[in-house]
Protein backbone atom coordinates (compact mmCIF):
# COMPACT_ATOMS: atom_id res chain seq x y z
CA UNK A 1 0.00 0.00 0.00
CA UNK A 2 1.76 3.05 -1.25
CA UNK A 3 -0.29 5.44 0.84
CA UNK A 4 0.58 3.77 4.09
CA UNK A 5 2.94 5.92 6.09
CA UNK A 6 6.11 4.13 7.04
CA UNK A 7 5.97 4.78 10.72
CA UNK A 8 8.37 3.26 13.16
CA UNK A 9 7.02 1.96 16.46
CA UNK A 10 7.45 5.28 18.24
CA UNK A 11 5.71 7.24 15.51
CA UNK A 12 2.90 4.70 15.45
CA UNK A 13 2.36 5.15 19.16
CA UNK A 14 2.31 8.94 18.79
CA UNK A 15 -0.05 8.97 15.83
CA UNK A 16 -2.48 6.41 17.17
CA UNK A 17 -2.37 8.03 20.58
CA UNK A 18 -3.29 11.40 19.09
CA UNK A 19 -6.18 10.01 17.12
CA UNK A 20 -7.53 7.25 19.33
CA UNK A 21 -6.38 7.46 22.91
CA UNK A 22 -9.45 9.17 24.30
CA UNK A 23 -11.83 6.97 22.35
CA UNK A 24 -10.10 3.83 23.56
CA UNK A 25 -10.15 4.94 27.19
CA UNK A 26 -13.86 5.62 26.90
CA UNK A 27 -14.35 2.21 25.33
CA UNK A 28 -12.55 0.62 28.23
CA UNK A 29 -14.65 2.59 30.73
CA UNK A 30 -17.73 1.02 29.16
CA UNK A 31 -16.14 -2.36 29.77
CA UNK A 32 -14.49 -1.98 33.17
CA UNK A 33 -16.69 0.69 34.74
CA UNK A 34 -13.76 2.64 36.11
CA UNK A 35 -11.74 5.47 34.61
CA UNK A 36 -8.45 4.87 36.32
CA UNK A 37 -8.43 1.20 35.38
CA UNK A 38 -9.41 2.09 31.84
CA UNK A 39 -6.48 4.47 31.53
CA UNK A 40 -4.11 1.77 32.71
CA UNK A 41 -5.56 -0.77 30.33
CA UNK A 42 -5.16 1.56 27.37
CA UNK A 43 -1.65 2.59 28.33
CA UNK A 44 -0.67 -1.05 28.63
CA UNK A 45 -2.20 -1.69 25.25
CA UNK A 46 -0.16 1.04 23.62
CA UNK A 47 2.98 -0.34 25.19
CA UNK A 48 2.05 -3.80 23.90
CA UNK A 49 1.39 -2.44 20.43
CA UNK A 50 4.76 -0.73 20.44
CA UNK A 51 6.35 -4.09 21.14
CA UNK A 52 4.45 -5.66 18.26
CA UNK A 53 4.89 -2.93 15.74
CA UNK A 54 7.45 -4.90 13.78
CA UNK A 55 4.74 -7.38 12.84
CA UNK A 56 1.88 -4.88 12.57
CA UNK A 57 3.55 -2.13 10.55
CA UNK A 58 0.26 -0.74 9.31
CA UNK A 59 -1.85 1.88 11.10
CA UNK A 60 -5.08 -0.04 10.51
CA UNK A 61 -3.56 -3.21 11.91
CA UNK A 62 -2.14 -1.22 14.78
CA UNK A 63 -5.56 0.15 15.59
CA UNK A 64 -7.18 -3.28 15.30
CA UNK A 65 -4.54 -4.65 17.61
CA UNK A 66 -5.13 -1.83 20.09
CA UNK A 67 -8.87 -2.44 20.09
CA UNK A 68 -8.45 -6.14 20.62
CA UNK A 69 -5.88 -5.63 23.34
CA UNK A 70 -8.02 -3.10 25.14
CA UNK A 71 -10.98 -5.48 25.09
CA UNK A 72 -8.90 -8.46 26.22
CA UNK A 73 -7.19 -6.57 28.98
CA UNK A 74 -10.43 -5.05 30.16
CA UNK A 75 -11.87 -8.53 30.39
CA UNK A 76 -8.84 -9.74 32.24
CA UNK A 77 -9.05 -6.87 34.71
CA UNK A 78 -12.68 -7.68 35.38
CA UNK A 79 -11.95 -11.31 35.97
CA UNK A 80 -9.19 -10.32 38.33
CA UNK A 81 -11.35 -7.82 40.11
CA UNK A 82 -14.21 -10.25 40.43
CA UNK A 83 -12.27 -12.15 43.03
CA UNK A 84 -11.98 -9.23 45.37
CA UNK A 85 -14.97 -7.11 44.75
CA UNK A 86 -17.47 -8.87 42.64
CA UNK A 87 -20.43 -6.73 43.26
CA UNK A 88 -18.84 -3.51 44.29
CA UNK A 89 -17.72 -1.78 41.15
CA UNK A 90 -15.46 1.14 41.74
CA UNK A 91 -17.30 4.44 41.77
CA UNK A 92 -16.82 6.73 38.84
CA UNK A 93 -15.56 10.15 39.75
CA UNK A 94 -18.24 12.76 39.90
CA UNK A 95 -18.28 14.98 36.90
CA UNK A 96 -19.67 18.44 36.68
CA UNK A 97 -20.81 19.68 33.35
CA UNK A 98 -23.33 21.83 31.69
CA UNK A 99 -24.22 19.39 29.00
CA UNK A 100 -27.88 19.98 28.57
CA UNK A 101 -28.71 17.24 26.11
CA UNK A 102 -26.50 14.63 27.61
CA UNK A 103 -27.58 12.46 30.44
CA UNK A 104 -27.13 13.64 33.94
CA UNK A 105 -24.41 12.02 36.02
CA UNK A 106 -27.08 9.89 37.57
CA UNK A 107 -28.33 8.68 34.21
CA UNK A 108 -24.81 7.90 33.06
CA UNK A 109 -24.26 5.83 36.09
CA UNK A 110 -27.44 3.92 35.40
CA UNK A 111 -26.24 3.10 31.92
CA UNK A 112 -22.79 2.06 33.09
CA UNK A 113 -24.30 0.01 35.90
CA UNK A 114 -26.66 -1.69 33.48
CA UNK A 115 -23.73 -2.52 31.20
CA UNK A 116 -21.80 -3.81 34.15
CA UNK A 117 -24.58 -6.24 34.97
CA UNK A 118 -24.49 -7.77 31.51
CA UNK A 119 -22.54 -10.90 30.72
CA UNK A 120 -19.06 -9.97 29.49
CA UNK A 121 -19.60 -10.87 25.87
CA UNK A 122 -22.83 -8.91 25.57
CA UNK A 123 -21.16 -5.88 27.07
CA UNK A 124 -18.23 -6.19 24.69
CA UNK A 125 -20.40 -6.63 21.64
CA UNK A 126 -22.55 -3.63 22.55
CA UNK A 127 -19.52 -1.43 23.15
CA UNK A 128 -17.85 -2.41 19.89
CA UNK A 129 -21.02 -2.16 17.86
CA UNK A 130 -22.58 0.99 19.27
CA UNK A 131 -19.65 2.88 20.66
CA UNK A 132 -16.90 2.08 18.15
CA UNK A 133 -19.39 1.41 15.39
CA UNK A 134 -17.59 -1.67 14.16
CA UNK A 135 -19.04 -4.01 11.59
CA UNK A 136 -20.24 -7.45 12.54
CA UNK A 137 -17.17 -9.01 10.92
CA UNK A 138 -14.83 -6.66 12.76
CA UNK A 139 -16.51 -7.44 16.05
CA UNK A 140 -16.31 -11.16 15.36
CA UNK A 141 -12.60 -10.97 14.66
CA UNK A 142 -11.89 -8.60 17.55
CA UNK A 143 -13.57 -10.93 20.01
CA UNK A 144 -12.69 -14.19 18.34
CA UNK A 145 -16.29 -15.31 18.15
CA UNK A 146 -18.57 -16.14 15.23
CA UNK A 147 -20.75 -13.58 13.51
CA UNK A 148 -23.76 -15.51 14.66
CA UNK A 149 -22.60 -15.11 18.22
CA UNK A 150 -22.11 -11.38 17.64
CA UNK A 151 -25.72 -11.13 16.49
CA UNK A 152 -27.14 -13.02 19.42
CA UNK A 153 -25.06 -11.20 22.03
CA UNK A 154 -26.05 -7.88 20.46
CA UNK A 155 -29.75 -8.61 20.46
CA UNK A 156 -29.71 -9.81 24.05
CA UNK A 157 -27.68 -6.81 25.12
CA UNK A 158 -29.98 -4.40 23.36
CA UNK A 159 -32.96 -6.07 24.99
CA UNK A 160 -31.36 -5.59 28.39
CA UNK A 161 -30.70 -1.92 27.80
CA UNK A 162 -34.05 -1.17 26.20
CA UNK A 163 -35.77 -0.17 29.46
CA UNK A 164 -33.19 2.58 29.91
CA UNK A 165 -33.99 3.79 26.44
CA UNK A 166 -37.62 4.18 27.30
CA UNK A 167 -36.75 6.12 30.42
CA UNK A 168 -34.60 8.45 28.43
CA UNK A 169 -37.17 9.43 25.86
Amino acid at each position, binding site marked *: MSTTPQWDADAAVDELYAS*HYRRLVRLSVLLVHDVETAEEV*VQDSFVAMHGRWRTLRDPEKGLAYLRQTVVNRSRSVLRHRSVQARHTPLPLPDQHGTDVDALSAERRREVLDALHELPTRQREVLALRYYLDLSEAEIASTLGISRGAVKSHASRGVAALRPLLKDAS
Partner: protein
Amino acid sequence: MNEYDGPPRRADAPGPGPDDEGIRRLLDDAVSHIEPHDSLGSIHARTKVSSMKRKQSWFLGAGAAVAAVAATVVAVTVLSGDGTPDPRDPVAGPTSSADADPSTTPSPEESASPDVSTPAMQTVPVYYAGDTSRGVRLYREFHRTEAIGDDPVTAAVNEAVSTEPDDQDYRTSWPAGTAAARVEGAGTPDVLTIDISSAGQIRTRPSGMSQEEAQIAVEQLIYTAQAADQSRKPVQFLLDGGRTDQLLGVPTSEPLSQGDAVDVLAQVWVIDPAEGAEVSAPFTVSGLAAAFEANVVWELRQGDTVVKSDFTTAEECCTMAPYSFEVTAPPGEYTLVVQDTDPSGGEGPAPWQDTKRITIVP
Protein backbone atom coordinates in the same frame (compact mmCIF):
# COMPACT_ATOMS: atom_id res chain seq x y z
CA MET B 1 -5.84 9.43 10.68
CA ASN B 2 -8.82 11.27 11.92
CA GLU B 3 -10.17 11.47 15.38
CA TYR B 4 -12.44 8.55 15.84
CA ASP B 5 -15.39 10.54 17.02
CA GLY B 6 -18.38 10.50 14.78
CA PRO B 7 -17.39 7.98 12.15
CA PRO B 8 -19.67 7.48 9.19
CA ARG B 9 -22.14 4.65 9.53
CA ARG B 10 -20.75 1.46 8.17
CA ALA B 11 -22.32 -0.04 5.13
CA ASP B 12 -21.89 -3.51 6.58
CA ALA B 13 -22.85 -2.60 10.11
CA PRO B 14 -25.17 -5.11 11.73
CA GLY B 15 -28.71 -4.76 10.54
CA PRO B 16 -30.35 -1.62 11.82
CA GLY B 17 -32.87 -2.02 14.56
CA PRO B 18 -35.35 0.50 15.86
CA ASP B 19 -33.30 0.98 19.00
CA ASP B 20 -29.89 1.28 17.38
CA GLU B 21 -29.71 5.04 17.39
CA GLY B 22 -30.95 5.20 20.96
CA ILE B 23 -28.41 2.69 22.22
CA ARG B 24 -25.66 4.47 20.36
CA ARG B 25 -26.57 7.73 22.05
CA LEU B 26 -26.88 6.03 25.41
CA LEU B 27 -23.34 4.66 25.25
CA ASP B 28 -21.86 7.82 23.77
CA ASP B 29 -23.41 9.91 26.50
CA ALA B 30 -22.44 7.53 29.26
CA VAL B 31 -18.75 8.23 28.64
CA SER B 32 -18.87 11.62 26.92
CA HIS B 33 -17.74 13.37 30.08
CA ILE B 34 -14.59 11.33 30.44
CA GLU B 35 -11.39 13.16 29.64
CA PRO B 36 -8.52 10.82 30.38
CA HIS B 37 -5.25 12.07 31.75
CA ASP B 38 -2.55 12.56 29.22
CA SER B 39 -0.33 9.52 29.42
CA LEU B 40 1.78 9.73 26.30
CA GLY B 41 4.77 10.55 28.47
CA SER B 42 4.46 7.46 30.57
CA ILE B 43 3.84 5.30 27.50
CA HIS B 44 7.06 6.67 26.02
CA ALA B 45 8.93 5.95 29.22
CA ARG B 46 7.74 2.38 29.15
CA THR B 47 8.30 1.72 25.47
CA LYS B 48 11.88 2.88 25.80
CA VAL B 49 12.48 0.32 28.48
CA SER B 50 10.55 -2.13 26.43
CA SER B 51 12.72 -1.67 23.37
CA MET B 52 15.87 -2.03 25.34
CA LYS B 53 14.88 -5.17 27.10
CA ARG B 54 12.99 -6.52 24.14
CA LYS B 55 10.12 -7.42 26.27
CA GLN B 56 6.46 -7.22 25.66
CA SER B 57 3.77 -6.91 28.17
CA TRP B 58 0.82 -8.84 27.09
CA PHE B 59 -1.86 -9.60 29.57
CA LEU B 60 -0.75 -13.10 30.21
CA GLY B 61 2.74 -11.86 30.73
CA ALA B 62 3.87 -13.91 27.88
CA GLY B 63 6.39 -11.92 25.94
CA ALA B 64 4.68 -14.53 24.22
CA ALA B 65 4.92 -18.03 23.96
CA VAL B 66 8.53 -18.63 24.45
CA ALA B 67 8.28 -17.17 27.88
CA ALA B 68 4.98 -18.86 28.44
CA VAL B 69 6.47 -22.18 27.63
CA ALA B 70 9.76 -21.66 29.32
CA ALA B 71 8.84 -20.04 32.52
CA THR B 72 5.26 -21.03 32.24
CA VAL B 73 3.80 -21.14 35.56
CA VAL B 74 2.60 -17.95 36.49
CA ALA B 75 0.95 -15.84 34.22
CA VAL B 76 -2.16 -17.84 34.27
CA THR B 77 -4.79 -16.68 36.62
CA VAL B 78 -6.78 -19.78 37.20
CA LEU B 79 -10.27 -19.04 38.25
CA SER B 80 -13.21 -21.31 38.26
CA GLY B 81 -16.39 -20.13 36.71
CA ASP B 82 -17.87 -18.69 39.83
CA GLY B 83 -14.91 -16.48 40.43
CA THR B 84 -13.46 -18.35 43.31
CA PRO B 85 -9.80 -19.17 43.14
CA ASP B 86 -9.13 -22.59 41.86
CA PRO B 87 -7.12 -24.57 44.34
CA ARG B 88 -4.66 -24.96 41.55
CA ASP B 89 -4.17 -21.26 41.28
CA PRO B 90 -0.44 -20.81 41.13
CA VAL B 91 -0.71 -18.19 43.79
CA ALA B 92 1.43 -20.07 46.20
CA GLY B 93 3.91 -21.12 43.60
CA PRO B 94 6.61 -19.10 42.01
CA THR B 95 5.14 -15.71 41.66
CA SER B 96 6.45 -13.88 38.74
CA SER B 97 7.72 -14.70 35.36
CA ALA B 98 10.98 -13.13 34.42
CA ASP B 99 9.35 -11.51 31.45
CA ALA B 100 6.25 -10.31 33.14
CA ASP B 101 6.20 -6.65 33.86
CA PRO B 102 4.78 -6.29 37.34
CA SER B 103 3.36 -2.91 36.53
CA THR B 104 1.22 -4.22 33.74
CA THR B 105 0.49 -7.80 34.53
CA PRO B 106 -2.10 -8.72 37.06
CA SER B 107 0.10 -10.47 39.50
CA PRO B 108 -0.89 -13.81 40.89
CA GLU B 109 -0.60 -12.53 44.43
CA GLU B 110 -3.39 -10.14 43.79
CA SER B 111 -5.52 -12.65 42.00
CA ALA B 112 -6.63 -14.43 45.09
CA SER B 113 -6.22 -13.99 48.72
CA PRO B 114 -3.28 -16.03 49.89
CA ASP B 115 -4.29 -18.90 52.05
CA VAL B 116 -2.42 -18.25 55.23
CA SER B 117 -3.80 -21.29 56.98
CA THR B 118 -1.84 -23.70 54.82
CA PRO B 119 1.61 -22.22 54.53
CA ALA B 120 3.15 -25.60 53.92
CA MET B 121 1.44 -26.02 50.58
CA GLN B 122 2.60 -24.72 47.26
CA THR B 123 1.40 -24.88 43.70
CA VAL B 124 3.82 -26.17 41.14
CA PRO B 125 3.74 -26.76 37.40
CA VAL B 126 4.00 -30.42 36.47
CA TYR B 127 4.33 -31.80 32.96
CA TYR B 128 2.88 -35.13 31.94
CA ALA B 129 2.99 -37.26 28.83
CA GLY B 130 -0.09 -37.73 26.68
CA ASP B 131 -0.85 -39.40 23.39
CA THR B 132 -1.53 -37.10 20.48
CA SER B 133 -2.05 -37.49 16.77
CA ARG B 134 1.65 -36.86 16.43
CA GLY B 135 2.99 -39.16 19.08
CA VAL B 136 3.71 -38.74 22.76
CA ARG B 137 3.84 -35.12 23.84
CA LEU B 138 3.80 -33.14 27.05
CA TYR B 139 0.88 -31.39 28.69
CA ARG B 140 1.04 -29.32 31.83
CA GLU B 141 -0.97 -29.30 35.01
CA PHE B 142 -0.70 -27.28 38.16
CA HIS B 143 -0.52 -29.34 41.31
CA ARG B 144 -0.95 -28.18 44.83
CA THR B 145 1.51 -30.11 46.90
CA GLU B 146 3.08 -30.07 50.24
CA ALA B 147 6.08 -27.83 50.16
CA ILE B 148 9.35 -29.72 50.27
CA GLY B 149 11.73 -27.35 51.97
CA ASP B 150 10.91 -24.22 50.11
CA ASP B 151 12.12 -25.52 46.83
CA PRO B 152 9.44 -25.66 44.17
CA VAL B 153 11.78 -27.58 41.86
CA THR B 154 11.99 -30.59 44.15
CA ALA B 155 8.27 -30.53 44.78
CA ALA B 156 7.54 -30.31 41.07
CA VAL B 157 9.91 -32.97 39.78
CA ASN B 158 8.97 -35.33 42.55
CA GLU B 159 5.34 -34.81 41.67
CA ALA B 160 6.15 -35.50 38.03
CA VAL B 161 7.74 -38.89 38.66
CA SER B 162 5.57 -40.10 41.50
CA THR B 163 2.01 -38.87 41.17
CA GLU B 164 -0.69 -39.49 38.66
CA PRO B 165 -1.95 -36.55 36.64
CA ASP B 166 -5.44 -35.20 37.28
CA ASP B 167 -6.32 -35.74 33.65
CA GLN B 168 -6.71 -39.42 32.96
CA ASP B 169 -5.60 -38.85 29.38
CA TYR B 170 -2.12 -38.04 30.64
CA ARG B 171 0.43 -40.20 32.37
CA THR B 172 3.86 -40.28 33.85
CA SER B 173 6.17 -42.79 32.25
CA TRP B 174 8.42 -43.16 35.25
CA PRO B 175 8.13 -46.54 36.99
CA ALA B 176 6.29 -46.71 40.28
CA GLY B 177 8.59 -46.07 43.21
CA THR B 178 10.61 -43.36 41.49
CA ALA B 179 11.46 -40.24 43.46
CA ALA B 180 13.23 -37.08 42.43
CA ALA B 181 14.81 -34.17 44.21
CA ARG B 182 16.89 -31.19 43.35
CA VAL B 183 20.40 -31.22 44.72
CA GLU B 184 21.22 -27.75 45.91
CA GLY B 185 24.73 -26.50 45.56
CA ALA B 186 25.79 -29.27 43.24
CA GLY B 187 27.66 -28.34 40.12
CA THR B 188 27.56 -24.76 38.90
CA PRO B 189 24.75 -22.36 39.72
CA ASP B 190 23.87 -22.35 36.04
CA VAL B 191 22.75 -25.95 36.14
CA LEU B 192 19.77 -27.54 37.83
CA THR B 193 20.87 -30.82 39.35
CA ILE B 194 18.13 -33.39 39.74
CA ASP B 195 18.72 -36.64 41.56
CA ILE B 196 16.50 -39.54 40.61
CA SER B 197 16.13 -42.71 42.57
CA SER B 198 13.88 -45.64 41.99
CA ALA B 199 12.94 -48.95 43.48
CA GLY B 200 13.33 -50.41 40.04
CA GLN B 201 15.89 -50.20 37.30
CA ILE B 202 15.70 -46.90 35.46
CA ARG B 203 19.16 -46.52 33.94
CA THR B 204 18.38 -48.35 30.74
CA ARG B 205 15.10 -48.34 28.92
CA PRO B 206 12.69 -50.82 30.45
CA SER B 207 11.33 -53.41 28.10
CA GLY B 208 7.96 -52.31 26.84
CA MET B 209 8.82 -48.62 26.88
CA SER B 210 9.31 -47.06 23.48
CA GLN B 211 12.29 -44.87 22.78
CA GLU B 212 9.93 -41.98 22.18
CA GLU B 213 8.24 -42.52 25.52
CA ALA B 214 11.63 -42.56 27.26
CA GLN B 215 12.75 -39.41 25.52
CA ILE B 216 9.55 -37.63 26.53
CA ALA B 217 9.91 -38.90 30.12
CA VAL B 218 13.28 -37.15 30.34
CA GLU B 219 11.89 -34.01 28.69
CA GLN B 220 9.04 -34.14 31.20
CA LEU B 221 11.50 -33.62 34.02
CA ILE B 222 13.52 -30.98 32.20
CA TYR B 223 10.41 -28.95 31.43
CA THR B 224 9.01 -29.43 34.91
CA ALA B 225 12.25 -28.44 36.65
CA GLN B 226 12.76 -25.40 34.47
CA ALA B 227 9.16 -24.29 34.85
CA ALA B 228 9.32 -24.60 38.62
CA ASP B 229 12.64 -22.79 38.65
CA GLN B 230 11.40 -20.24 36.14
CA SER B 231 14.59 -20.55 34.24
CA ARG B 232 15.95 -22.38 31.30
CA LYS B 233 19.01 -23.64 33.07
CA PRO B 234 20.11 -26.98 31.68
CA VAL B 235 19.38 -30.00 33.83
CA GLN B 236 22.05 -32.39 35.06
CA PHE B 237 20.54 -35.70 36.05
CA LEU B 238 21.96 -37.91 38.76
CA LEU B 239 20.93 -41.47 39.46
CA ASP B 240 20.99 -42.35 43.13
CA GLY B 241 23.30 -39.42 43.78
CA GLY B 242 25.86 -40.08 41.08
CA ARG B 243 26.38 -39.14 37.46
CA THR B 244 24.86 -41.58 35.05
CA ASP B 245 25.49 -42.09 31.37
CA GLN B 246 21.80 -42.66 30.76
CA LEU B 247 18.32 -42.59 32.23
CA LEU B 248 15.69 -44.82 30.68
CA GLY B 249 18.26 -45.32 27.93
CA VAL B 250 18.45 -41.60 27.13
CA PRO B 251 21.99 -40.18 27.28
CA THR B 252 22.32 -37.98 30.36
CA SER B 253 26.03 -37.53 31.04
CA GLU B 254 25.90 -33.85 30.18
CA PRO B 255 23.49 -31.17 31.39
CA LEU B 256 20.49 -31.21 29.06
CA SER B 257 18.61 -28.28 27.61
CA GLN B 258 14.94 -28.61 26.94
CA GLY B 259 13.95 -30.00 23.59
CA ASP B 260 12.27 -27.75 21.08
CA ALA B 261 8.72 -27.00 22.18
CA VAL B 262 7.43 -27.84 18.72
CA ASP B 263 8.74 -31.37 19.07
CA VAL B 264 8.03 -31.93 22.73
CA LEU B 265 4.83 -30.18 23.73
CA ALA B 266 1.29 -30.95 22.72
CA GLN B 267 0.36 -27.83 20.81
CA VAL B 268 -3.06 -27.28 22.39
CA TRP B 269 -3.52 -27.18 26.14
CA VAL B 270 -6.56 -26.47 28.23
CA ILE B 271 -5.35 -25.00 31.49
CA ASP B 272 -8.60 -24.04 33.10
CA PRO B 273 -10.97 -25.67 33.95
CA ALA B 274 -8.98 -28.64 35.14
CA GLU B 275 -10.05 -32.22 34.60
CA GLY B 276 -13.01 -33.08 36.81
CA ALA B 277 -13.70 -29.46 37.68
CA GLU B 278 -17.11 -28.31 38.78
CA VAL B 279 -17.99 -24.98 37.30
CA SER B 280 -21.07 -22.85 37.08
CA ALA B 281 -22.09 -21.34 33.79
CA PRO B 282 -20.97 -19.15 32.26
CA PHE B 283 -17.36 -20.06 32.77
CA THR B 284 -14.17 -19.13 31.01
CA VAL B 285 -11.92 -21.68 29.42
CA SER B 286 -8.33 -20.67 29.02
CA GLY B 287 -5.20 -22.33 27.82
CA LEU B 288 -2.30 -22.13 25.44
CA ALA B 289 -2.23 -23.17 21.84
CA ALA B 290 0.18 -23.03 18.96
CA ALA B 291 -2.58 -23.32 16.45
CA PHE B 292 -2.56 -23.08 12.70
CA GLU B 293 -3.54 -19.49 11.89
CA ALA B 294 -4.18 -19.11 15.64
CA ASN B 295 -7.58 -20.75 15.19
CA VAL B 296 -8.83 -22.66 18.19
CA VAL B 297 -12.09 -24.58 17.89
CA TRP B 298 -13.98 -26.13 20.73
CA GLU B 299 -16.89 -28.40 21.40
CA LEU B 300 -18.85 -29.19 24.50
CA ARG B 301 -20.00 -32.78 24.24
CA GLN B 302 -22.34 -35.05 26.12
CA GLY B 303 -21.56 -38.54 24.93
CA ASP B 304 -21.50 -38.28 21.16
CA THR B 305 -23.74 -35.25 21.08
CA VAL B 306 -22.16 -31.89 20.48
CA VAL B 307 -24.04 -29.51 22.74
CA LYS B 308 -22.13 -26.38 21.88
CA SER B 309 -19.31 -25.47 19.58
CA ASP B 310 -17.57 -22.33 18.52
CA PHE B 311 -14.12 -21.05 17.75
CA THR B 312 -11.76 -18.42 18.99
CA THR B 313 -8.29 -17.25 18.19
CA ALA B 314 -5.16 -17.46 20.22
CA GLU B 315 -3.25 -14.26 20.63
CA GLU B 316 -0.66 -15.38 18.13
CA CYS B 317 -0.35 -18.16 15.68
CA CYS B 318 2.27 -20.84 15.46
CA THR B 319 3.71 -20.50 18.95
CA MET B 320 2.19 -21.39 22.32
CA ALA B 321 -0.01 -18.38 22.94
CA PRO B 322 -2.90 -17.73 25.31
CA TYR B 323 -6.49 -18.15 24.25
CA SER B 324 -9.69 -17.96 26.20
CA PHE B 325 -13.40 -18.18 25.58
CA GLU B 326 -16.59 -18.26 27.52
CA VAL B 327 -18.95 -21.20 27.66
CA THR B 328 -22.45 -21.43 28.94
CA ALA B 329 -24.62 -24.53 29.03
CA PRO B 330 -27.23 -26.12 31.27
CA PRO B 331 -26.03 -28.04 34.33
CA GLY B 332 -24.73 -31.52 33.58
CA GLU B 333 -21.64 -33.55 32.85
CA TYR B 334 -19.71 -32.69 29.75
CA THR B 335 -16.53 -33.29 27.87
CA LEU B 336 -14.86 -30.13 26.65
CA VAL B 337 -12.76 -30.66 23.54
CA VAL B 338 -10.40 -27.93 22.38
CA GLN B 339 -8.40 -28.36 19.22
CA ASP B 340 -6.70 -26.50 16.45
CA THR B 341 -7.85 -26.62 12.87
CA ASP B 342 -6.46 -28.94 10.27
CA PRO B 343 -4.58 -27.03 7.61
CA SER B 344 -4.37 -30.09 5.37
CA GLY B 345 -8.10 -30.65 5.13
CA GLY B 346 -7.85 -34.12 6.58
CA GLU B 347 -4.79 -35.35 4.75
CA GLY B 348 -2.28 -34.66 7.47
CA PRO B 349 -2.34 -35.83 11.07
CA ALA B 350 -5.45 -35.13 13.09
CA PRO B 351 -5.55 -31.78 14.90
CA TRP B 352 -3.96 -31.25 18.27
CA GLN B 353 -6.46 -31.47 21.03
CA ASP B 354 -6.96 -31.47 24.75
CA THR B 355 -10.09 -32.70 26.49
CA LYS B 356 -11.44 -32.10 29.96
CA ARG B 357 -14.34 -33.78 31.68
CA ILE B 358 -16.20 -31.14 33.59
CA THR B 359 -19.43 -30.79 35.49
CA ILE B 360 -21.55 -27.70 35.17
CA VAL B 361 -23.36 -27.21 38.45
CA PRO B 362 -26.52 -25.15 38.89
